[in-house]
C-alpha cells in the first residue's frame, strides 16, 4: 500500500546524482536512449506533442531516441501531468521497474510545478515531490522542439543543435 502524503519539501531520500555520475550516465545513453512515458494526469496536450516527435517533421529516432513499451527496457522516464492521486502508485511502480541508471524528466507545466492545478486535494502538483527529477521541460504543452532540446540537454548533447533553418522557420511560424 502506498500512502499519499503531500510533501512540502522534496523527499530527503531523493538525492541528486553527482556531476561525475551524471557525466557517466550521459555517456552511457549518449547514442541510444529508450524512453518510457507516463501520463500522470495531463490534459493530453503533452501526449499529442510527444507523439509528434516520431512524425516525419521531427523524427526523433534519427537522434537515437526511442519510445519503449515496458519500463524494464527504459533508460528515461518522461512524466507529464499534475501527478494525480490515483497515478502516484503506478508512477512509483514504473520508476521502480526501471533498471539503473535511470533518468527522470518532468514534461510540461503540470509536471514541473503543477500548472493551474498546483497542489490540490486531487493532485500532487509536481513530479519532484515523489521522484528525483533530472530535467524540467516547461511549456503548456512544450512544443516538439522544446522536448527535443530538453532531451538532448538531459543527455549532455545540447550542443548538437537542430538544423538552424528548422528553428528559424519555427520561430517565425513558417511551415
Amino acid at each position, binding site marked *: *500500500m502506498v500512502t499519499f502524503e503531500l510533501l512540502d519539501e522534496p523527499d530527503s531520500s531523493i538525492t541528486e546524482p553527482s556531476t561525475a555520475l551524471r557525466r557517466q550516465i550521459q555517456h552511457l545513453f549518449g547514442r541510444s536512449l529508450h524512453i518510457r512515458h507516463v501520463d500522470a494526469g495531463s*490534459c*493530453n496536450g503533452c501526449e499529442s506533442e510527444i507523439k509528434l516527435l516520431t512524425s516525419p517533421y521531427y523524427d526523433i529516432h534519427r537522434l537515437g531516441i526511442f519510445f519503449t513499451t515496458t519500463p524494464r527496457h527504459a533508460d528515461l522516464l518522461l512524466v507529464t501531468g499534475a501527478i*494525480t492521486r*490515483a497515478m502516484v502508485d503506478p508512477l512509483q511502480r514504473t520508476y521502480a521497474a526501471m533498471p539503473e541508471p535511470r533518468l527522470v524528466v518532468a514534461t510540461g507545466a503540470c509536471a514541473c510545478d503543477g500548472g493551474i492545478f498546483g497542489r490540490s486535494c486531487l493532485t500532487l502538483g509536481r513530479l519532484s515531490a515523489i521522484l528525483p527529477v533530472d530535467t524540467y521541460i516547461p511549456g503548456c504543452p512544450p512544443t516538439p522542439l522544446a522536448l527535443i532540446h530538453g532531451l538532448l540537454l538531459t543527455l549532455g548533447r545540447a550542443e548538437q543543435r537542430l538544423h538552424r533553418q528548422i528553428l528559424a522557420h519555427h520561430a517565425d511560424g513558417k511551415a
Partner: protein
Amino acid sequence: MSILDWARQVRLLHPNEWEVVLTPANLTTTVEALCANPRNHFTDMFGVEMGGERQLRLLFALDSEHGWLHLVVPVTGDSPHYTSLVEVCPATLWYEREVAEECGIIPSGHPGPLHLRLPDDWPEGVYPHGGGFSWQDKIPAVAPHPVELASAPDGIVDYPLGPVRSGVVESGHYLLRTAGEELVDMRLQLFYKHRGIEKRAEGCSLLHLPLIAERISGTSAFAHSLALCEAVERAAGIEAPPRARYLRTLFAELERLYNHHGYQADLCQATGLVVGQAQFDVLKERLLRLNARLAGHRYLFGLNVPGGLSRDLTDTERQVIDEELRFQRRTFTVLEELLFRSNSHIDRLERTGTLPPELALAWGAVGPVGRAAGVDRDLRRDHPYAAYAELDFAVPLETDGDALARARLRLEEVRQSFRLIDQILGSLPSSAVRVPPEACMVRPGVSALGWVESPRGEGVHWLSFGEQRQARRYRVRTGSFANWQTFPAAVPGHNILTDFPVIEQSFGLSFAGADR
C-alpha cells in the same frame, strides 16, 4: 408540454433553456416520459450544493425549437435518496455513480458499485461537490478500496492493460478477458487522471475560467473554452460580436481538422500502416503550425475569452489559411483514396468493435461515435451556436457502428470542415472581435449552459455564479465521458485480442476529457 404536469415550477432561464423543479417521487415518471420521445436526449446529470441545500440536476436536450430542459430535484437529509433511473434511462449509469460519490445523493437500486471517479484512497463521506472544503484542502488518504470486479469463469485469462501501457498514451486501465483469442469480456477502469477540474474552478473569476476549460482536454481546448465562454455570455445576457462568432467557428473547425487527422494517424498506427500514420501526422503538424501562426499557440490556448476572442485575424493570415487549406484538401483527397486501397488497413476495421445502434442510442453515444452508429445528432445543426446557423454544411451519418464506419465518418467530417472554413473565409463579417470586459458582467447567483460539438462529441458546460460573480459550481460533461460509457459494449464478442488497439483507436476518445 404534458410532461411538465408534475412540475412544481417551470421557468425559462435563458432563451431555449427551461428549468423544472421536481420532487424525488415524480422524477422517475418524468424521466420515463422524456425518454419515451426519441427526439429528447438525456445529456447530463449532476449534483449541486447551494448554501447547504443539495440539488440533483438532470439535463435533457429537447428538439431544436425547445432547446434544453433542466430537471431540478432538491433533496434534503443527511443521506438523500432517489430511485435509480438506470431502468428507465440506462445512460444514467455512470452519472448516478458520480453524483453519489461527489455529492452524496444516493440512487436506490443502482445495479453497480457507486465508487467511480475519486481515487481508491479517498475517504468515504467526503463529497467534493457536497460543500465543506476547498480545492486546496488536503484530504488524508485511507486504505485503498478499489471496486471489486466480478471474477471471470474458469479458463478465462484476465489480461491487464494499463494504466501504464504501450506507446505514448494516456493513463487508463482495461481488464481484457479472453479465452485465448476472442475477447469475451472487458472491464474498464478510467479516472486515473481525475484532476478535479470542476472543483478547481470553484471560486475562480471570469478571466481564469477559460484557462481551466482549455485544460479539460488539451486537444479540444478551443471547443471547451468556447462552450464555457458561451455559457458566461448567456449568463451575462450578451452575445459575442459577429466577427468573433465567425472566427470562433473557424478555429473550432481548424481544431476538428487537426484532431481528425491525428485520429486517422493513430488508427493507421493501430493497424500497422506506418505510411498512413506519417502522412496524417504531417497534415496534423502543418495545422498545428498554422494555429501557432494565427493564435500564438499550437493548441489555441488563450484565444477564447468571455465576450469574444483575444485577437483578430489579419487579411494576410486569411490568405495563409486559404493557401494551407488548398494544400490540405489536395493531400487529403489523395490520402483518403490510398487509405481505402490499403486492404491491410480496411480489413482490420471492417466489422471490428461494432457498437450496435440500439445500444449506442440507449447508452447515450454522442459525436462521431454516435453518428457512426446511427445516432443522428450534431449540436452544430440541432442547437446551433457560434455562427453555425448561418453556414451550410451536412452532418454525415453511418449505421454500421463498426470501426470502419467511425473512420469513414470522420473522413467525411473533414470534408465538411473544409467546406465550412471556405464559407467563413468568404463571408467574414467585419466588426470588433470582443465586447469590452466591463460589458461582460454576470449577475450574482445566475446560472447558464454552454454547449459545443467538440471533435470527440458534445461538450456541455453548466456554470453557476456566486455572490461575488465568481464560479460557484462548474459542471462539464464531455463527449468522451458519454462515449466511454458505451465503449465496453463494443469490445466483447467477435473481436480478438489483437483487435483491441484498433477498437480503442477507432473510438478516438480522450481520457483527460472523461476524467476531468
